[in-house]
């Protein structure tokens, strides 16, 4: 039973971790909560479904699904890039409240664009391939869960190497540490910020596609809950901290699965638990589990 919930929690947690990476990277370079990120996640699910439906007419479903994921990767990256360009960049020098308000505006806009022009109902997300069930030590898991875990971990490990071992990754870390000094060292800060949005959006888009597949249906307002939970995960791991976001996501996912599995009526209360974790972490340890304390700039 514990193993069972652990596997469910890991699957959920790896999705949260993918979304949380987008929040945390953007926060790292801009010190701003990208409220529209949950809508990018939602758009990822829709893009992948629409592509899957188109493509499966002339290719095998599994390939169509993979093509859908890749397209949502690309489209969401572009979307995040455009959002930064249009709604956030003009506000770099404005007060802290302004980009936050603009981000909420983007979030409302995207959600309602999908509501009006694509669908106001939930759409069924078909399974692209036959799902095999396995049993191991009394726990049941399926090939879909393995696929999600696999894709999520490959992406996270790639990101880890990208950020730590490449020149571009070093530039991202430098910008996050101190944008002014980074620009004095010849790092094009604006392009680095754009790239950060690009990567965050791509990961969010893939998470959306996988999430749609996992739950079997998608809706225009599906981004809010996972988005807020992923943000919780990012805060839990210490916002701005990339490994922290991965661990935070996995911890939160496992915690949620345990609550749903072991507390009576737990599935009604699991969302409350996520928010309570967020409140408690913010109130008592706002730097997160893995973050280091950054004093406010005066």
């Amino acid at each position, binding site marked *: 039973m514990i193993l069972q919930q652990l596997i469910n929690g890991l699957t959920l947690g790896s999705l949260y971790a993918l979304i949380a990476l987008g929040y945390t990277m953007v926060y790292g370079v801009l010190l*701003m*909560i990208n409220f529209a990120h949950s809508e990018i996640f939602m758009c990822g699910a829709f893009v992948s479904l629409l592509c899957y439906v188109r493509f499966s007419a002339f290719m095998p479903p599994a390939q169509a699904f993979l093509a859908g994921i890749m397209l949502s990767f690309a489209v969401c990256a572009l979307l995040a890039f455009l959002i930064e360009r*249009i*709604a956030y960049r*003009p*506000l*770099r*020098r*404005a*007060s*802290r*409240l*302004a*980009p*936050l*308000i*603009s981000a*909420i*505006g*983007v*979030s*409302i*806009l*995207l*959600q*309602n*664009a999908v*509501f*009006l022009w694509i669908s*106001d109902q939930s759409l069924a997300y078909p399974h692209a391939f036959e799902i095999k069930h396995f049993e191991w030590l009394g726990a049941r898991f399926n090939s879909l869960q393995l696929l999600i875990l696999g894709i999520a971990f490959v992406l996270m490990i790639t990101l880890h190497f990208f950020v730590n071992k490449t020149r571009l990754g070093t530039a991202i870390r430098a910008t996050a540490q101190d*944008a*002014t000094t980074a*620009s*004095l060292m010849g790092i*094009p*800060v*604006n*392009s680095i910020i754009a790239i950060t949005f690009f990567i965050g959006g791509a990961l969010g888009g893939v998470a959306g596609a996988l999430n749609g597949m996992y739950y079997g249906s998608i809706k225009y307002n599906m981004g*809010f809950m996972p988005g*807020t939970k992923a*943000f*919780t995960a990012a*805060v839990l791991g210490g916002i701005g901290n990339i490994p922290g976001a991965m661990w935070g996501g996995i911890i939160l996912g496992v915690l949620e699965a345990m609550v749903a599995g072991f507390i009576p*009526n737990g599935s*009604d*209360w699991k*969302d*409350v638990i996520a*928010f*309570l974790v*967020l*409140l408690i972490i*913010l*109130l*008592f340890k*706002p730097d997160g589990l893995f973050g280091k304390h950054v004093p*406010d700039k*005066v």
Partner: protein
Amino acid sequence: MTKPAKWGLWGSGLVLLILIPYLLQSTPASFCIRIAGIAGLYMLLALGLNVVIGFVGLLDLGFMAFYAIGSYTAAILSIQKVPFVWCVLASMLASCLIRILIGFPALRLRGDYLAVVTLGFGEVVRLVATNWDALTNGPKGLPRVGQSIRPASLFGFELTSNLHYYYLILACVLAAVWVCERLNHSRVGRAWVAIREDEVAAELMGVEVTRQKVVAFGLSAAFAGLAGAIFAHWEGFVTPESFTFWESVLLVCAVVLGGMGSIPGVILGTLCIVLVPEILRSVLGSYFANARYLLFGLSLILMAIYRPQGLWPSKRRTHELKPTEAGEDHARETLYDAERK
């Protein structure tokens, strides 16, 4: 404008606000009275939210939580046959106290974290209202079958029609405007503005920052509690669906659209968010009424970029220092924009 002329203008405006609904009440346009009442409730909420966002500069994304707490308190008490006035007072007190309890730890956080804490708390309240069957009857809402929320009564006069509630709400909005106006020009109001502009400088000048923030926080919730209590009695029915995150966002829209910190601006902003969908619906059909959130989202982005002071900016804001005049920000500007130029 001379003082008597100003009073004359205000007086005639008030007379129109009282007379027009009275004349409309038996015409086919009487549905307008209800819309005006709803707009009034939103005004109460937006005025309360404006204390926090506009005066102190703290973004709150879960304000509907306190409207919910007010509504549920009033509904639960009214079912127990508590008189209306006591229900209202209890609602205001409950919203206020819970808000202060949350506020003490939360207000030490930086601005955007506070936004997330309030968002989270707003959702917690909604989810608790949905799941705690014993207290709130879950998604089915209060009152339960066989119980009822009695209509409000004031000094032995029972409020039964929409018009009665309209007058009650009108009186409350006027009182709220007066309270906000006086607060804004008081010592407390100036302390709030000082905090909004520069927290550290305010602290150094002897403003007790956390205490002033808690005062603003609690006070704003009292507005929400009042609106909630009236809403519960007027509708006679409370469900968790009335208090979603999007309603909170709508209120933020109203405040930002009208002009943060500007009382006439907030009233104007509220009128925009309540009336624009109604007008869209009657002129263009229900399809466009669904597009209202799209318009609000777009307007938030455009306002943030092109007109951050709002449609009707507060006088005080227009006298403020522009951020680019400060030395440090100037330095940041050149570094960030070096590439673009």
